[in-house]
């Protein structure tokens, strides 16, 4: 049973979204590519001009749409292409993370990092590390349950509606 459980867990391939800035982490991930460093293919990168641009709502949307984990990454402090976008982003994430944690949303599923354009190897580590973490945490069905509108509706009403539709269409 334990072995079976373990085997099942290892089959879980987490879906991970990465929100990154164009100038540091996106370029860093490009460097991972040009250096041919391999990493897990679970992550898909969304490019933003700056971490300052990343709306916290997009993180919530990613969870709602099925992400099991999220990476948010940009330039190291003092390295921002726009001088201070990452400082603003840092404050935003401090507050957002605090609020999510207070509401019981699993902040361990969001990996925040600074990856510079020179840190191709670090990018691979961040992705692989996040994949490992999320694999241990399992799929984020807990949050998606809240997203499933139909499941929350009264089953009898839906059944009733379906019955009605059937009866109408059979006419």
């Amino acid at each position: 049973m334990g072995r079976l459980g373990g085997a099942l867990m290892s089959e879980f391939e987490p879906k991970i979204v990465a929100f990154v800035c164009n100038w540091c982490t996106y370029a860093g991930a490009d460097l991972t590519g040009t250096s041919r460093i391999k990493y897990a293919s679970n992550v898909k990168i969304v490019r933003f001009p700056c971490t300052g641009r990343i709306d916290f709502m997009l993180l919530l949307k990613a969870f709602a749409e099925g992400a099991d984990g999220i990476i948010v990454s940009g330039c190291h402090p003092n390295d921002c292409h726009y001088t201070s976008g990452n400082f603003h982003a840092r404050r935003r994430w401090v507050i957002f993370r605090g609020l999510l944690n207070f509401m019981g949303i699993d902040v361990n599923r969001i990996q925040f990092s600074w990856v510079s354009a020179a840190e191709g190897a670090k990018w691979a580590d961040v992705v692989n590390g996040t994949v490992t973490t999320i694999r241990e945490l399992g799929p984020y069905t807990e949050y998606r349950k809240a997203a499933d509108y139909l499941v929350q509706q009264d089953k009898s009403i839906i059944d009733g509606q379906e019955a009605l539709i059937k009866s109408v269409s059979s006419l």
Partner: protein
Amino acid sequence: MSKIGVFICHCGENISATVDCERVAAEAGKMDGVEFATDYKYMCSDPGQTLIKNAIKEKGLTGVVVGACSPRMHEPTFRKACAEAGLNPYLCEMSNLREHCSWVHEKNEQTTEKAIDLVKMLVEKVKKNKPLNAIKVPITKKALVIGGGIAGIQAALDIANAGQQVIMVEKEPSIGGHMSQLSETFPTLDCSQCILTPRMVEVAQHPNITLYTYAELEHLDGFIGNFKATIRLKAKSVDYKLCTGCGACTTKCPNKKIPSEFNEGLGMRTAIYTPFPQAVPNKPVIDRANCTYYQKGKCKVCEKVCPTGAIQYDLPDQFITEDIGAVVIATGFNVLKTDFFPEYGYGKYADVLTGLQFERLASASGPTLGEIRRPSDGKVPKKIVFIACSGSRDPAKGIPYCSKICCMYTAKHAMLYQHKVHDGESYVFYMDIRAGGKNYEEFVRRAIEDDGVNYIRGRVARIYEKDGKYIVKGADTLLGSKPVEIEADMVVLATAGVSNPGAEELAQKMHVSYDAYKFFAEAHPKLKPVETNTAGIFLCGACQAPKDIPETVGMASGAAAKVIGLFSNNELTREPLIAVVNRSAPPVFSTCVGCFMCQTACPYNAIEREEIKGRDGSVIKTVAKVNPGLCQGCGTCVAFCRSKAIDIQGFSNEQMFAEVMALMNE
């Protein structure tokens, strides 16, 4: 209805070795709104681009996704190709299948699946793309150069010689800066004034340069190509139109005991003065704080002796505004004074000098006419000690950086001393000798080997006075920290180069950033050394960090080249990837509520207030407006705006939302 074309590149085998490109194209073809999808060996090649162009024309595509390498590599290429086929270039997006997929994953099913997802994300994004047009900003072809030292002089002359107008603002009564104070310059020992003064004269006489001395920048508004500078012309109390510079006033001024700034306090000047004989302009100003008439209400000797009636006591400060297209900051640096060093006598020993003071002693135009004499008693010092790194490279004193020029000028000082005092003995205490630069190392070796300067590697712990001598107590670390004690007649401290007082205030006026030491910050330490983070404002010389003359001149020419480049067009073309505050029909006008939180979020001060007025001219609403000349497109404001009234073109809320929503849908 969208008609998107998807073009999957094999990149030779770079992508196709691990990603099934045919399948990606086939799957893309089934995506909602995709009109045409294909794959090709080299999409960036001429036939590849032709393939895209033909598809745009034949299929009437409304958007293009190229699945190939990183957009950081070829986005401009494909956007240009689209534009050539008549599609707005900003309706083309790239999906990064190479750097972010094929090169980093193994060849398997998941890798191809990921490639399909990556394409889908960009297909959904591009559906929300809007055609954009490059932003055109008019340019006022006139540069403001702040600071009239060698950096400002070089930049101004380069710009003026390229046929552009220059306004130079110098806060002192004469241009020339620190370079005019120097005796000889390393590594050639040519006389500083001999090479500088012709350039100062050239500035004054250049038809394209308007020179304002004794003036400061009061205010700077606007943005690249379109600045408005307010300049304060400090009251000189002398009408320069009438003054001939005869010097009668300065000779007769009864107040003769004011320490001369030019001579670093080693000589005296009068209250009405020209800083030095070769000053440009060679006309005096009245130093009101030290003038008997201004302080006590009577004297007016200068007025009496002036043959042209040029003295005008009640001239106030004047303000002028100038339209400017670009700014070059060349405000230079300063050095720490000796009173910064308690261990070297808090500045109370008359013969413990700064390097800059020693320059004045060694200078033929200096207070001793170039003879090295002690300020205290006028005697020629027979034993002299130079202390390098006085303050520099000392985190405990708050100056952790290397001031860069001191190793070289200390070697020069020792050499000049040996040349002038043949029987003298000179010692240099140093931490390391940093002589990187053409002929620099050779210069230091000459000081040591040819001129017999004694170099001692070690720090000086203390200096105290004893029987008319200065006892310099240090250690020689190359001899196992053996204590060294020298009875010196004079000590010269190579005090650290620091930012000018007022640099911070000036930076804030111009909205440029500065570092922890109040030196102005370049936009990028490697690739944008003469730009600031504010477009249209450039930097040169020691206001950015201490540097020597050749480096300063090189940087000044670099900044000038940037200005000349900017002025080579009548309009400035900028990427339209900037933030925009929405506007809508009355009575709403804009969903912006005018809380102006975005103003503090913007790193570029690009957000302005716009008053929306009714027909009668009354203000209905005050809302935010993004200045397209200043916005750099970071989008920080967009993520802040609670009511989403501000959005960024190219990475809009709709685009990013669509991209994220596409990401997970199976």
